[in-house]
């Protein structure tokens, strides 16, 4: 006879995941879906899949890694389904030429900076988008590697590229001052 009620355990894990990573999941949804109505559906889908998946959570990875894996996989499937109506998605390497000639604006306010950042994220292919979002959530390279399934070395290369892209676009260049 089991000592714990599995439903209660699942709900407890879900509540903990939402408490600790709920806001991050909201931001993740914003990174994958621009349309407000569709974003609401994506959020629901992520939460539903997360809750369902927790029946299989065995503690072999952290709850954070598990939560982000489920969320990213769900969102990647979402992007794939919605792609027919979308413009072409690009990799980190391909997005760099798109940024050429668009140096950081010195007086870019926060809402506009956020809009530009979101636009940049939503142009990326799912894998690069995952890495970008994990970086923005300040996850370390080892956790990002756990979530994405890439090697830590590969993640490091991607993060290096992301930093270069973001610094070109969003961080003040003092040499222009």
């Amino acid at each position, binding site marked *: 006879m089991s000592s714990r009620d599995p439903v209660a355990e699942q709900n407890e894990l879900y509540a903990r995941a939402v408490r600790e990573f709920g806001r991050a999941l909201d931001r993740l949804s914003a990174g994958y879906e621009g349309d407000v109505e569709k974003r609401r559906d994506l959020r629901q889908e992520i939460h539903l899949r997360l809750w369902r998946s927790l029946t299989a959570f065995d503690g072999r990875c952290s709850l954070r890694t598990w939560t982000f894996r489920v969320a990213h996989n769900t969102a990647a499937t979402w992007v794939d389904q919605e792609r027919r109506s979308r413009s072409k998605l690009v990799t980190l390497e391909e997005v760099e030429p798109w940024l050429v000639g668009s140096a950081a604006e010195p007086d870019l306010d926060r809402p506009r900076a956020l809009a530009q950042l979101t636009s940049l994220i939503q142009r990326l292919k799912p894998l690069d988008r995952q890495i970008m979002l994990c970086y*923005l959530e300040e996850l370390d390279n080892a956790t990002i590697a756990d979530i994405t399934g890439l090697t830590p070395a590969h993640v490091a290369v991607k993060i290096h590229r992301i930093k270069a892209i973001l610094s070109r676009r969003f961080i003040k260049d003092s040499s222009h001052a």
Partner: protein
Amino acid sequence: MPEQSSENDPRRIWKDQPQEEPDVKLNHFVGHRTQQLYASTRSEIVVSIGAALFFLAVLAWRIDGTPDRLQQLGYGLVVVWIAASIYWFRDRIWRRDQPPAEAVAAPGLEYYRKELQRRRAHLLNAWLWHGPLFLASLLFVASVAGHSFPNAERLRSVLPLGLLLALWTAMGFWRRYRQAQEIQRELDQLGTLL
């Protein structure tokens, strides 16, 4: 060198973005999913029966000449099948089996499981609610072809369209079977909890 301050650090900009929507609640999204399943099932039945009626109406009003016995039998069968489908799915169509308001507001796991079971049964019984449409389509194709190409050429002329219709039907059944399997997996997962 670029100068990074907390003010324009993209990670701060990203993490400090305003929260635009309230938190997602377990009951809300289970309820949302349940309503989605319910609505899909209902609309599929209504659209399928509506399309069958449309084909019948077109046949009755636009095709000249008296239908032969086989066609008459076909029409009769479609009408009976439609009536049986409407009777069989009356609760789904007119929402008589909707749960009480408080259950919709906070549907539990059990309610969600029942909706999944209904959806699975609906998908596995696709022949029941898709049958009239298939038969009406077949009659429509046969009647149009027979009208245009009488006698000996009739069968040959209707063959490509008939094959296309059969292929479309087979693919539809296969797709619904796959969806039912997916739902079964979800039910199995829930089964470990209930």
